[in-house]
């Protein structure tokens, strides 16, 4: 029994050391597996843009734990169009993806002035009966 507890503790603590999209608890990390094929600067633009998109105000605090604003300043200075354009496209794509995921779970972000903090991690994330649920009536 003790071994199981120790093993479980290790399994829970270890992922906390790597707060990036590689972490198994990182939300929507499947997005990084949807990386379209292309040259390195294109792929780097997608990774950086997507991370940034997932860290914007469209997502909640849980997302912001794993993702942060990322942009390669050298690419911007050198005006690598392939990087900057992919960054922009990935940023809007991923931020809307995060918003769509949260909204499907009934976690619509609050507007300024509506009071209260953001939805908690375990708020109603598992409740799919709200708007956006899978079903003909929700198309």
């Amino acid at each position: 029994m003790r071994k199981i507890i120790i093993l479980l503790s290790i399994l829970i603590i270890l992922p906390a050391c790597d707060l990036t999209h590689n972490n198994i608890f990182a939300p929507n990390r499947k997005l990084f597996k949807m990386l379209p094929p292309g040259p390195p600067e294109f792929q780097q633009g997608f990774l950086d843009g997507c991370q940034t998109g997932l860290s914007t105000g469209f997502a909640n605090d849980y997302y912001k734990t794993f993702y942060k604003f990322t942009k390669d300043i050298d690419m911007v200075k050198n005006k690598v169009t392939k990087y900057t354009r992919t960054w922009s496209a990935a940023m809007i794509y991923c931020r809307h993806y995060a918003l769509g995921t949260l909204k499907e779970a009934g976690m619509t972000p609050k507007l300024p002035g509506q009071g209260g903090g953001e939805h908690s991690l375990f708020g109603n994330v598992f409740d799919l009966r709200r708007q956006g649920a899978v079903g003909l009536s929700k198309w």
Partner: protein
Amino acid sequence: MCLSLVPDKDILVVAGFLKKSMKLRRIAFCILIIHLLFLESCSRYIIAPAHVKLPKYGSFAMLTGTRQGCNSAFSSRGNSMYRTFFKLELDSNQIEDPEYFDSWYRGYILCFHLVNRRAFSSIDSNIEPEHAWFWNKGKSGNPKIGWALDQGIKLPGQGGGGIKLPGQKEGWHWNTHLFGGNCQGIWQCAK
């Protein structure tokens, strides 16, 4: 139905031959259902939740960009149903072409607004009272809306007080109730 294929001793004793024919019918029925499921999975373009009429004529870059941007928006802003049918589409070979990238972005924005309206509200909700402000916009006696979304913004001095831009500091505050109260738009309202 399919679960009932498990042999039932009592029924076998009573029904005999009849039972066998019934079993065959049920097997055929199950096979039919499985076939239909396979057909459904193959027919993504037939039962996809959205079909948008995109431009038929134009350069290759423009047409590809618009279609790919549209599909990407369905994937990102849609619900799980949309994400089953659409995914991110971005062509690394064409992204440096301004015509492609501009079309991608325009297609994305167009379909973003379409899916935003469709995916997160039922079809019936479009005629429910909560959407009355939209259908009654521009009609007299509708107090909920100051100006229609497609009407444009009246600038100060052009009648109605106009909308003030942030920073003008003339007693305006952040609008927390869209189209409610004394609002002139989605940004700010008069106190």
